[in-house]
């Protein structure tokens, strides 16, 4: 947290097994220009996993084929919101999996540096927009106080109402936009657009906000530990839960619990 406050830029971790390629990207990409900061690089999946967990970067750029565990597996184990994949593969099943892991884009080797910069630039724009949303939510929280994050429940839109009730039922399972779209019989792009238009939040933001609200409720029970709460709220790992929680509340779940139990 402190890192971003110092530099006001988003952090990036690059995972690529070829040293030449790694060095080339590290030196060629105009990180500063993109308001990014490359905070670490790794040469295999396991090393990458450790590094990501340690540094908690905003963005991960990774190859798919890596020694140890592959790039997608690595992403699945880490609390990652935004990733860009570089690959020699065009296998569609990889792409599908990548979408589920919240991968922002998928670039094919040989990677055009210009293309990569364009991709990173639009990703930064998106993250900034999301941060603004979170900021807005944090501000409204201090006024109400009933819930950690106030969320619209009924929006007078049949489809979005159904999506919200889907979230209310399934937040404890590892579901995302794809499952909701399949459930509602819509295309993912359509649901995503509609949801953002009606609620002002995108689907994933809303889902995570819902999960955080639920976790706050559960934290009132002192017998439950943080890891258990993360799992039962549908977060893949406690680390990811902690990261998301911090984004919404500004503090980690443990800090939050300490503050509120003393009150």
């Amino acid at each position, binding site marked *: 947290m402190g890192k971003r406050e110092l530099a006001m830029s988003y952090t990036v971790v690059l995972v690529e097994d070829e040293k*030449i390629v790694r060095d080339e990207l590290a030196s060629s990409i105009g990180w500063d220009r993109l308001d990014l900061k490359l905070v670490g690089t790794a040469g295999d999946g396991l090393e990458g996993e450790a590094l990501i967990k340690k540094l908690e970067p905003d963005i991960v750029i990774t190859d798919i084929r890596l020694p140890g565990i592959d790039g997608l597996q690595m992403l699945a184990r880490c609390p990652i919101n935004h990733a860009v994949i570089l690959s020699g593969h065009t296998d569609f099943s990889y792409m599908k999996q990548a979408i589920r892991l919240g991968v922002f884009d998928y670039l094919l080797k040989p990677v055009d540096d210009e293309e990569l910069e364009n991709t990173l630039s639009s990703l930064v724009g*998106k993250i900034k927009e999301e941060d603004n949303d979170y900021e807005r939510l944090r501000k409204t929280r201090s006024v109400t106080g009933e819930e950690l994050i106030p969320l619209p429940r009924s929006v007078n839109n049949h489809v979005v109402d159904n999506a919200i009730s889907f979230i209310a039922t399934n937040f404890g399972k590892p579901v995302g936009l794809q499952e909701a779209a399949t459930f509602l019989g819509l295309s993912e792009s359509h649901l995503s657009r509609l949801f953002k238009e009606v609620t002002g939040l995108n689907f994933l933001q809303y889902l995570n906000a819902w999960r955080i609200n639920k976790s706050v409720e559960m934290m009132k029970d002192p017998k439950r530990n943080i890891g258990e709460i993360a799992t039962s709220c549908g977060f893949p790992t406690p680390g990811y839960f902690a990261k998301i929680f911090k984004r919404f509340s500004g503090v980690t779940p443990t800090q939050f619990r300490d503050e509120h139990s003393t009150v």
Partner: protein
Amino acid sequence: MRRRSLFFKLLTSFLIILMIPVCLVFLFNFVFGNKNLLRSLKAQGKLAVDQDAAALSSVLDEYRHKAYQLSTDPLTIQLLGKGEDAMDSEESRQLYTLMFSTMKGDTYLANANIVSSSGKIRFSTHDFPSIYDLRYHTNETEPGSLFSLLEGTSLTASTISIRGRTSTGNNETIIATIIRQVYDAKGNVVGYVIIELFSGAADFLNQDYVLSDEILVNPTKYYASSLLHANVAGSYEKFPELSDIPNLNSGVISRSHKILCVTPLSNTDLLLVGSLSTTPYEASMRQLILIILITLAAGVALSVLCASLFSRSIARPVKELVVSMKKVEQGNLSTQVPDANIEEFAQLDHSFNTMVSQITSLMELTREEEAKLAEAERHALESQMNPHFLFNTLNTIKALAKIHHEDQIYTITLKLGKLLRSTVDNHESECSIKESMELVDSYLTIQKIRFGEKLHVALETEPECLDAMTPKLIIQPMVENAIGHGLEPKAGDWNLLVRIWAQGEILHIIIKDDGIGFDRATLPSDLGKLEGSGHVGIYNVYRRLKLRFKDEATMTIESDTGKGTVTTMTMPLIHKTVDSEEGEFLV
């Protein structure tokens, strides 16, 4: 809805057509025919009998008058009063003269006899009939005798009897006897004049042959005799039909199988009865019924035959067609139906055959298309070593170039990577003009680095054509051809133009170079004839265009030696459908 066989329907209609006229004839004959026939028979019979009766009465009147003349002649009266010896006297000869003159030569129709009441004097124009010989026949009860004939009749008038049915010596049948008594001055009966009428006198009877019999009837004496049949005479017992008509004077009566027409003879108490047998008419009526029934039976048989023939002639081609359709359903596309001998079915069969052969050729076309694609893929697979290795290596080269600031190597590596991706990694058969032109651009970027400033390229694409869909790899191979065969051998500057525009619903693509060109004779104007020739690249592009768009696509190559080559392609303008959102990355 109930289903009935064709045969049943045809049979029903045939039977209806057959039944209507036959039933009408039948009905007409039985309701009206019998009555009409009977009425006309009655009228005909009555007319014949009336005519005959009038003629017969005039004949009878004539002979009655002759009897009167003879009986009132003084010579007759005088002679009858004399003895037996007078038969040879001079007066007797005068009497004979009188008798013959009175009969006026009608002696072949009738005879005249004069007999005295004592029987001693007898004259006759023929042989005197012995039954009137009063010397031997004095018994009144003896049938046929003079007295029995006179019984109960008026003594002054002539008596006409029909009972004297005897045959004379010359075998004439007597139909009537006229008897008149001869009185002397004192009023005593001195003798009798008897005229017997032969059947010849009535030969005018039944000249039309309408009647089966004509009977002269004496209703007071219940005696009758047939005028047409000899030897049929006697009381009513011999004419059973007459027994039913007592007191009948005139009219027509129907009897079973007979019609009787009765007319009285004027000035007599006799009746003439004409008998008309209806049996032949009834027989002909029965025959008519029989004919109708036979016609009906034959008609029904014919209907069954025709219906079965017709239904079979219709059902057979339909059945053949159905069988053939089943075969086609099961996938046997070599099925052909032989033309039926009914025009409409022949047309149907023809259409069916055409359809099947069209399906066959369509399937062949699809198969060919698949084979082409499979071959193209095989080629691609053969040519690719390990794409992942290839692309990773390119990536490494690119990284190295970048690190060492080798901009041209960097660019060539990137573009080569894109080029390889679109040929090796892309399994779609179609792509947009935008993708095609990116590929062309990648290719030309490399070539520009290779050949430096002498390659001048102009790529002109109308913006509305960018999303037009065409088979992939139709432009780049032709650009490659232009550079490889047209421009590379040429000294000096190279100019290449690729222009893409839309005109209405047609997409135009031209690839033009100012290279060395080639002799037009070496390339056929119909590029389809290139199959199996050395121009694999051109034929491949041409064939894929044709497979995709059939005759709606054209491709021509024009060249002038030393001046350059122009490749022109046209095809329908098909815009990309907007369902490509699925590929977008979403969060």
